[in-house]
């Protein structure tokens, strides 16, 4: 599948934003946060900015962005519509949490309610994003039980790396947070490996013979193309990264998205002051780069069943 850069930015940025948002809401529910007065407003603003950037970016690949509002109407059947609705609804409790943090509003009960709502809606939004892909039976590597857990864990892991960074910038981050971030990275990396093993091991059962119905006449191969140069279908669904590059890129993704951030956070745990903050910032940078590679691969490795008509033997 053609990796639309706006969609890569959208899914990685909004994933990290929702992860951070949910964790900040969790801190609010638990009543735990750093002493710094502006930690919560700045962090919530960053999370909302990431989410908003992602959502705006997702409209860039539309042919008719001015009609994007129509996408809120078909939530009964469409995961894309559900994602849009949930994303907008999430702004309500999350925005109120932000305002409460700015003005120092302190009713624990209301804050907890807003926090719980934010956590639930953020998770539901990320789940909907994943289901846009996971619901497509036409793309084997997306129609996989690991896709939704992957998106949720990647959001949580990247959100926790961001939280670790922000907390370090406002003061010494607690060891529990650093440990939690490392654990989230480990689980997310494990899920990613499990996903890759699952899609690599899956048997490709759809054939060009079934696609054309000509199997009884023998092995089928295209002899004349239907058009002389690539059409939309071939450009959109035919994009595919070479297998040897994919293996290398997977290792790069694992290193940048999970291993290096975990190492940087481990080192930050054992250092203090500006060094700890610098290491936490480095963890964010590495994780972001790794997730972009991971998301690019998610698209570039996906093969669409329609390519059976254009020369693929199996799908």
């Amino acid at each position, binding site marked *: 599948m053609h990796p639309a850069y706006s969609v890569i930015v959208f899914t990685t940025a909004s994933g990290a934003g929702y992860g951070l948002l949910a964790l900040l809401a969790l801190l609010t529910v638990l009543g735990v946060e750093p002493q710094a007065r502006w930690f919560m407003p700045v962090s919530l603003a960053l999370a909302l900015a990431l989410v908003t950037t992602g959502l705006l970016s997702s409209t860039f690949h539309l042919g008719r962005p001015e009609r994007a509002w129509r996408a809120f109407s078909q939530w009964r059947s469409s995961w894309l519509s559900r994602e849009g609705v949930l994303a907008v609804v999430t702004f309500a409790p999350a925005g109120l949490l932000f305002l409460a943090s700015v003005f120092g509003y302190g009713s624990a009960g209301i804050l907890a309610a807003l926090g719980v709502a934010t956590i639930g809606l953020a998770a539901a939004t990320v789940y909907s994003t994943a289901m846009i892909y996971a619901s497509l*039976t036409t793309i084997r590597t997306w129609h996989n039980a690991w896709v939704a857990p992957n998106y949720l864990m990647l959001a949580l892991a990247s959100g926790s790396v961001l939280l670790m960074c922000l907390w370090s910038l406002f003061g010494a981050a607690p060891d529990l947070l650093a440990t939690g971030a490392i654990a989230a990275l480990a689980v997310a990396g494990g899920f990613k490996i499990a996903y890759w093993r699952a899609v690599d091991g899956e048997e490709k059962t759809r054939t060009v013979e079934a*696609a054309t119905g*000509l199997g009884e006449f023998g092995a089928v*191969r295209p002899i004349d193309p239907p058009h002389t140069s690539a059409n939309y279908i071939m450009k959109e669904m035919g994009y595919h990264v070479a297998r040897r590059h994919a293996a290398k890129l997977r290792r790069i993704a694992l290193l940048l998205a999970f291993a290096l951030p975990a190492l940087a956070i481990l080192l930050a745990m054992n250092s203090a002051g500006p060094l700890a903050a610098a290491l936490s910032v480095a963890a964010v940078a590495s994780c972001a780069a790794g997730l972009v590679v991971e998301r690019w691969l998610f698209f570039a490795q996906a093969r669409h069943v329609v390519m059976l008509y254009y020369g693929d033997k199996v799908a």
Partner: protein
Amino acid sequence: MTSLPDTSGAGQKKLGLVIDLDVCVGCHACAVSCKEWNTGGYSAPLSDERPYGDEPMGAWLNRVHSYQADDGGRTQTVHFPRSCLHCEEPACVTVCPTGASYKRVEDGIVLVNPETCIGCKLCSWACPYGAREYDYDHGVMKKCTLCVDRIYNDNLAPEDQVPACVRACPTSARHFGDLGDPQSDVSKLVAEREGYDLLPEMGYKPVNKYLPPRKRRDDRLEADASRVEEPLAGDGSALERLFAWADAKLSG
């Protein structure tokens, strides 16, 4: 509304095409006629990019592939037109976030409303048959309309009230009708010729059916020893021996 209408009832009209792979000669007249009609019809425009350039590209609603089936002994060429199958379970409709993509209750035709499509392309991802092509210039998705602007159009002569591809086919490889009615000509044709679905295991329940090529009689020529011509016997002349010598030298 992109939730699917209930079309399971008896007597439900299911308009569609039956494509006879036995007689299709791969002339592309259906594809060209489709493009010609639809660039001025419901889906207008069907934009082209660089139509006279090195790599022309454009939105077409019908494509004609040519395949070779090889059973190890003999090969067979099959021309294979591919367009929207107007599925009974079209995921292209249910994934649409705006309601622009819909399946008509009255006849089962799957359409895109070009006024409300946002061009997110998700419907084309959901289609296993590559039936939808994005119009880069118009910014919306295009697909076969089953010539909804011809088949009910009383301003046209009765023989023209069929999809443009059906009207254009010079070998009558394309048939149009109600596949929901077991007594219709197309349904009888499908029953008689064992018409089939493409990728049935994917569960989209295509309405359009394909008729397989008829079995060919095995007309390969057996090697016939009596037909092999013997070389003419030589007369042993000096000239002939010179040529034989030259032939041997040159062949060495």
